[in-house]
Every structure is written in structure tokens, then in C-alpha cells.
């Protein structure tokens, strides 16, 4: 199946109005309006290694108007009106702000009161539905998530940001000292330039570990970029790493824990996107990222401390179960190209052990540069997947 790669050239305002016009016309004729959206789930995900990220299949979610769905439709149209207004005025809001704005409107207007959202998850799901329906990014509807993760350190990188008024802001990361540069949720507006040749980019699962490496002089001694992912990468981190990949064309390595959760939820999302964001993966995934570690062979090679996975622990048991599931159902792990990653999952399932990324700090406690040495040695030796 040919991968559906999104090319964006739509007029959101016009498309929304057409959609609403059709709904209104249906109602006038006593026909049930239908809203359709791309089904964003694993069973509608496809992975082509040449494309490099998860793309959507043909499955659609249909919501036909009936007594049960009338509430959802009314909320969708209500929220769409707010978002279209934002697009018109250029206003930007977070999901949480939209939740409170919607709440404020409905509480102050008796007519709208039945729409009231009891919590943010209700309004979030409506926003997501609108985006899936129009096949647009949340950011394209002027709705941004709070900035999280992506703290970046480098002595060679210069970022030029085009602001909404057309002016430019230039940030030379070498002038920031120990303060990180944090990309916004629209990294596509950045232009990157290297003052000097950059050898590689290292994305680290834990933002704290990235900070420690930088504090120990990693970026002083190496021509590189260090990014802290802060757990599961946000849209901002995913878009930022994709921008680094596309504009600088340098090797990118990911370094995190050796456990099922890191491989499936963090690394796979960074590299190939997620099933929940099928329509966004083209701009929010970096297929060239490689898994530097921790690898099962590193445990032996560097005598890293590791420990048993407790199946009595609900979270860990769930991660193991998910690992079994993805080996059978996740198109990313089913691709022959990612056989090596599957082997790591197999090892984790078989050995039922895990190793934290911070284990490299304990290899030689007397040598604070030991983690740096291990990372560089692994890059040099090609010890990555």
C-alpha cells in the first residue's frame, strides 16, 4: 500500500464552512449529517521503512447524528467556532486555555449551559476530533500544547526564528552558558546553522542526564548538540529533532533506559511517530534517529547495574504485556528493518531485566568523564541500532 503522506495546502476556514454548510443542508432536509475523521489507531497504522514513519490507512471514524451523538456534534461545532475565530484573529491558545474559555462561555450563557465540559479531557477529545476530521495539526488550528522537553545545548548551533510579524530572532546557543535553548511547538519556523561542523546530535531520554553531561563539559569537548527529551517526546521535541535531521543532516542518536517502555513509547515515537498522531507524523518524527543504548550488550560490556523487572508491579507488568503485543501488532516493530529492535524487546521479555540510562555513571565513580567516554566509544564503534 502506498503511504499517504500529507501535503498541506488547505484553507481551514473554507473547508470548515463547507463542512458546516453540508451539515446544515442535511438538517434542513431531515437527513442525518455525518462527520468523518481519519481513524488514528494502531490498527489503521502502516509503516514503510522508506517513508520512515507511521502513516494512516483507509479506515475512517464516522459519527452520524442521533440522540446519543447530538451532544458530541453540538460540542464539536461550538469548539470549531472558537478555533476558527482564533485563526481569523491570529490568537493562539493552549488546550487548557481553550477548555477554560469554553467553560467560561457556557457558564455565562444559559443557552449554551448543556455543553459544559466536566473536565479538560472532554474538551481535549473534541479538539482532537476536529483536527482528525479536518486532517490538520492542532498547531495549524492555533492550538499549542505547553512547552515540555527539548532542552538543547550546543556550542556550534545558531537558530534563527521567524516571528509572526515577519521579523527574525537569532539565538546563538553558545552564548547561553549553561541555560538551555527550548524550542517552541512550531519548530518548522526555525532556520538552523552550524558555526562549525557539528558531528552528531545526542537525544537523551532524561533531561537531567542531558544537563549532567553538559555540566561535565560534554558540549565543550565535542562538536555536538545535546537534547533532553524529558520522557515521551512532545510534539515540540519531535518536530525539533526532525528539523535538526532535515536541516543539518547530521547523525542523531538516542540514549535512554534499556526497558520496554523506552523502546516502544519513547524511541518509537521519536523515530516513527505515534498511532494517535497519524496525520502529523510526517512533520513530527525523525526517522534517521538511531538507538545508541542502553543495549543488552552494553550491560555485559560495561558491567552495568541492572535489576529484575517485577511482574507484580502493575506498571512494569503492563510494559511487558505491551512489549509482547507490539511484537505481534505494531507495524514499526514488524518491519524487517527493525529486526534488531525486536531482538532487544525479545531479550527484555526473556531476561525480565532492565537497566537505567544512569547506570553509566556508576561504571567508574572516580571518573566523571566515564559516561562521555562510553557514549563516544559506542558512536565510534558503531555500537547502536
Amino acid at each position, binding site marked *: 500500500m502506498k503511504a499517504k503522506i500529507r501535503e498541506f495546502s488547505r484553507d481551514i476556514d473554507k473547508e*470548515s*464552512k463547507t463542512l*458546516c*454548510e453540508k*451539515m*446544515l443542508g*442535511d*438538517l*434542513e*432536509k*431531515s*437527513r*442525518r449529517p455525518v462527520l468523518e475523521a481519519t481513524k488514528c489507531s494502531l490498527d489503521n497504522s502502516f509503516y514503510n521503512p522508506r517513508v520512515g514513519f507511521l502513516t494512516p490507512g483507509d479506515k475512517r471514524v464516522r459519527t452520524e*447524528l*442521533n*440522540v*446519543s451523538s*447530538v*451532544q458530541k*456534534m*453540538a460540542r464539536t*461545532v*461550538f469548539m*470549531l*467556532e472558537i478555533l*476558527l475565530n482564533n485563526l481569523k484573529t491570529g490568537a493562539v491558545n493552549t488546550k487548557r486555555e481553550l477548555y477554560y474559555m469554553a467553560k467560561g462561555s457556557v457558564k455565562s450563557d444559559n*443557552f*449554551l449551559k*448543556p*455543553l459544559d465540559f466536566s473536565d479538560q479531557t472532554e474538551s481535549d477529545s473534541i479538539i482532537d476530533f476536529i483536527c482528525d476530521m479536518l486532517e490538520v495539526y492542532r498547531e495549524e488550528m492555533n492550538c499549542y500544547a505547553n512547552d515540555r522537553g527539548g532542552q538543547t545545548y550546543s556550542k556550534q548551533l545558531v537558530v534563527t526564528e521567524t516571528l509572526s510579524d515577519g521579523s527574525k530572532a537569532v539565538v546563538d546557543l553558545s552564548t547561553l552558558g549553561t541555560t538551555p535553548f527550548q524550542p517552541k511547538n512550531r519548530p518548522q519556523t526555525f532556520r538552523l546553522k552550524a558555526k562549525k561542523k557539528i558531528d552528531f546530535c545526542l537525544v537523551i531520554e532524561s533531561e537531567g542526564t542531558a544537563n549532567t553531561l553538559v555540566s561535565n563539559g560534554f558540549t565543550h569537548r565535542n562538536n555536538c548538540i545535546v537534547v533532553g527529551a524529558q520522557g515521551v517526546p512532545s510534539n515540540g521535541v519531535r518536530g525539533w529533532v526532525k528539523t535538526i535531521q532535515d536541516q543539518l543532516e547530521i547523525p542523531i542518536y538516542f540514549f535512554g533506559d534499556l526497558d520496554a517502555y523506552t523502546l516502544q513509547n519513547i524511541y518509537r515515537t521519536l523515530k516513527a511517530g505515534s498511532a494517535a498522531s497519524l496525520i502529523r507524523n510526517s512533520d513530527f518524527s525523525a526517522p534517521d534517529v538511531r538507538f545508541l543504548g542502553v543495549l543488552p550488550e552494553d550491560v555485559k560490556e560495561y558491567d552495568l547495574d541492572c535489576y529484575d523487572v517485577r511482574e507484580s508491579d502493575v506498571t512494569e507488568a503492563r510494559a511487558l504485556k505491551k512489549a509482547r503485543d507490539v511484537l505481534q501488532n505494531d507495524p514499526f516493530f514488524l518491519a524487517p528493518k527493525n529486526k534488531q529492535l525486536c531482538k532487544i524487546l525479545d531479550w527484555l521479555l526473556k531476561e525480565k531485566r532492565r537497566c537505567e540510562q544512569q547506570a553509566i555513571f556508576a561504571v567508574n565513580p572516580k571518573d566523571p568523564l566515564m559516561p562521555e567516554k562510553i557514549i563516544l566509544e559506542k558512536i565510534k564503534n558503531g555500537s547502536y541500532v
Partner: protein
Amino acid sequence: MSKITSSSTAEYFAKNLQQVGFSSPTKAVLTTLKEAVDNALDACEEASITPELLVTVNRVGKGSTKTADLIEIVVEDNGPGIDPDDLAKVFGEYLASSKFGRGQCSRGQQGIGISAATTWAQLTNAAGVRVISKTAKMRKALQAQVDVDIKGNRGLLKHKEMIDWDRDHGTRVEFVIDGRVQLNGDGGIITYLDGTTLVNPHMTLKYKLMDADWVEVKRVSDEVPHIPAATMPHPHTMKLGEFMTHAHLYGKMNLDKFLRKGFSRVSDSSITDFVKNGLPKSLLNSSLAKFKETEFKQVFQVLQATELTNPSTRSVLTVGEEGLSKSIHRLGNIDFFSVVTRRPRICDFKPVVVEVAIARFLNRPSDQEDTTIQLLRFANRVPLQFDKAACAITQAVESVNWRSYGLQQAKNSLPNGPYVFAISVTSPFIKFKNASKETIDASEELVEEIRRALMQAGQKLSRHIKREHKAADLERKLQHIEKFGPILVSGLVNITGASSKRKVAAEEGLKKLLGRDSELAESELAQAEERLQVLKAKQRARLGVEDEEGDANLESEEDLSRSEESGEQLSLDESLAPATTKKRATGKKASTKKTAQAATTTKKAADAGTTTKKAATKKTTAKEAEPRKKK
């Protein structure tokens, strides 16, 4: 070696009153009241008198101990009265009973309770019970104080005098004891009186508790339940030793004749079955006198291994679905209710009948949705109020999945909600866990039997609850249409900038669309409503309210199913025998024919029955509308 001495029964109980319900001041008051009321009701029923009871409980001073009050308990009945010669025995002698082991469903069984109450009064207030009694033959009433001679297990009459009493016959007992009064809750006096009211539809009760006003609960049935005579024993209700003792009573009679004459439910075909199951034919003609123990055992084993008809229902007394239906309305304003009387079954070698009444009361606060139901347990029509957890009835209620009937329930717990569950177990031989008769032994067979009754009642109950759910569903859907429809159209008009004319057209179109959806919900509700009406028609018929024709037709369907259940029991319903028997007969016949035909025949039978019982029931219906009359 210390000297071995003998003690009288009275000495034993005087030292162990906690075993018979006097373990705390609160329980002492309730147990005393219970014993007096049980005796009064049993006496009335035995003499075929519709009971009229008067009860007062008052605090009359300080108790002899720090934690107790001095409580006066008076119970007066219109029973036959007690012969002056028996007075001392009844109130002052342990194990002196007219009911011990006779195999009847009377409330009292052993002759312990009222003597224990006298002992408690004597131990805590230095005086036994004051009794006034008059039989129909007596011109004046006998008033006396009865004490227990604890050493000799005898009753002693003191302060005897003949007095004028404005009654033809009856008994009045006055206990003044150390105790504390608890009115509400599981162990409360009001709960006890409510329970007694429920299972005694023929009883009129006037009571005054402490400072509260007089309360009068009038009877809803004029029929005194006939306590069936004990029937011949059923072979499956015996143990080997009992079987041998029973055989010795028949002397030289041969086995064949003994089995036919000495037992119930042994017929010609049963004898043939015994032979098929290994009973040597030669034994049948042998004289019992020549039987050895091994032969008795062989015969007994064959009897146990052979299937026999269930024991006669004539030895079991039930309140009856009709009596329960009427009586439950005396406890308060009822939203809806469901009653079930099971056919008698053998559980643990004894015939048992289980009856269940479940009601939702309107006057109970709605916050009771989260609290457990009120469980009323009865054994031979006596409320059981203590040691709930170990009781067969409680275990049976907890074992049912009430969620499937629409009630909330935590796993293996009592369900929640503003409901009263009344479960009555009646048997000539109820297996209690202790002498104070507070808990029925939870054998597997009995728990299963109660569970089945509860499930039947639950199915009826669920019709009400499902209808409510459907109605709520329709209401929710209608609300959705009214609430969200205009907002949806308004939003679309805002975004598209459409004209107000288009807005009106869209609103009309939307109403048509969603109206179709609500029609589906309405039809589901109508179905649930129809099923509920079937049940309600049956209940109305039972309460004696005249039905509209449509309802009466619906009723027949229920009666068909009922006829399968109710079998041939003798019950309070017997007064209505022409109606119920006829219904049953027609119902059974019709079961093989079309339902419509059955409906017509049943309607005719029901009409005939209605006229005969109209006089008795019409009056009571008006009274039922008011929960309780206060004087």
C-alpha cells in the same frame, strides 16, 4: 474427688440466661416482649381467635444495676386465657410446653422462653411475672404473680386473687425487669413489631412505646391461620435411630403395612420402587418384631435411596403471597413490592417453605441508595434480630447477584437501596443455631432454597427497576434533543452565516430526526411498562382491588407461572380457596392451550373470586392507604 451434684433445668437456665436471649439489658427487653407476643399469638391461633394485641413498654424507674433502667413490659391478648391450674407451669417451669417436638409450625417450640423471662424479672427485680388470665368459662379473672422455683424447676403462684376484668377471655402479662429500650435498628422494638405485623396479616396490634403516642395497626385479613396438624412422618425426614423407634411403636405389624400406615407419601408404587431398589420381598411380609438392627438399616437405606413425593404440605404453614401483599402495605407507603411463596421443599430432612417479600418504600430517604437494604428475617413467623451474619437467610441474600436485577451491590454483600427484604422460613422443625433462636443454621440445601425464592422475587422486582431505567433513558434522550439540538443548529448558522429561515428549517429537520430516535426508546419503555402491568395486575388482584378488564387479562399470564410454583400449600389463602383453587385449576388446564384462552378462563375465575372476598377485602384496602393510624 469433688462431689458430683445434679442441678435442675431451671438452675441451668438461671445461670445461663445469655443463651436464651438475655445477654444484655437491651436484648432482655426485646426477648421478654418477643416471648410474650409469641405466646399470645400462638394461643389465639390455636383457639381460632383473630388476635388483638396490646403492647406497652415503659421506663418506670432505675434498674438495680448502674447500666440498666427498670422497664415495664405489658402484653395483653384476647386469646382463650390460661387455665388457672396451668398458670404456674406456663410461666414458671422450664420445658413445660404443649408444643415440644410435635411437628407443628408454631412460634414457640420448647417451653423455655417465657419461663426465662420470668427468671430474668425475678433475678433483676425480685419479682416474677404478674399475670391476669380469664378463660371463657370463668366469671372472674385470676390475677397472680408467678415466680420460678429455681431449685425445683416449678412455678410458684403468689398473691392470687380473683378480680373483675372486662374481657370474655384473654391473658395479660406484666414484666418489670432491668433493661434498656432500643426502639430502632436491627435489634429495635419497632423493627420487631413491624416484622411481626408483616407476617401476621390477621393481627390487630395497639402499642405504646415509652413517651410516643399510641399506634394502632389494624388487621388486613379476618382469617385465622389454621395451624396444620402434624402429618405422618416422611421417610426422608428421619434418621436411622428415629426410624427404629418409630417402628417399635407398631409392634408386630408387617413391614409392608408399617411403611404404608406409619409414613406419609408411601404408596403402592413406592413399595414397588423400594423392591426395585433392593428391598427383599421377603422382608415386606415379616413382622417388625422379628427385625434385627441390620435389617432395619437395610430397609432404611433403601428408603433413603428411593425417590418419593415431597412431604405433605399440610404440615407446613405459610403466610401466603396474598397475606404478605396486603400486610406489607401496613409498614408504610410502598412504591412497589414483590412477593414469592415457594412450594414446600425438603431441606435437611425437614419440609420447609420459604417466603419472600421485597418492597421499596416511598417514605425512606433517597440517600439510602448507598446504604444496605433493611433485612427482616423470620423463622416460623418470629422475627430474628441478632447475629445476622451467620444466618442462612443473610447468606442466601448475599449470594444472589442483585446487580442483574438492577440493584447496587458490593460483591458478597447485602444489596443497597431503600428496600425492605422480608424473608420467612417456616418449618415444623427449624434448625436453629442456639436456644435463643436468633439464627437459622446455614445448611447448603436451605441456603439454596432461600436463594431460589429470592431470585424469583428479584425477577419480579427487576420489572419495576427496568421500567424506571427505560423511563430514565427516554427522559435523558428527550432532554438531549431539547438541550443540544438548538445549540448545534445555532453553531452551524454562526459559522456558515445562514439566514434565520434556514435556521428554522434546520431546527424542524433536527426535531424530526431525533424524534425518530426517541420513538425507539419510547417503544422499549412501552414494552417494560407492559411487563410491569402484568405484575401490577396480579398484585392488585391479590390486594382485592377491582381490576380494569385489560389488567385482569394480563393477570392470567402471571397466574399460570404462579400455579407452577404455589403447588398445593395450605395457607392463610385458604379463606380464598374458591378463587385461588379455581384459578390454579384453570391455569393448569390452560397451560397447554393458547394464552388468550387461558386469559379468558382465568378472568372468569378471578371475577368469581373477587365477589366472594370483596366484603372482607374492600374494607381493608381503604385502610391500607394509610400506613398507620395513630390514636
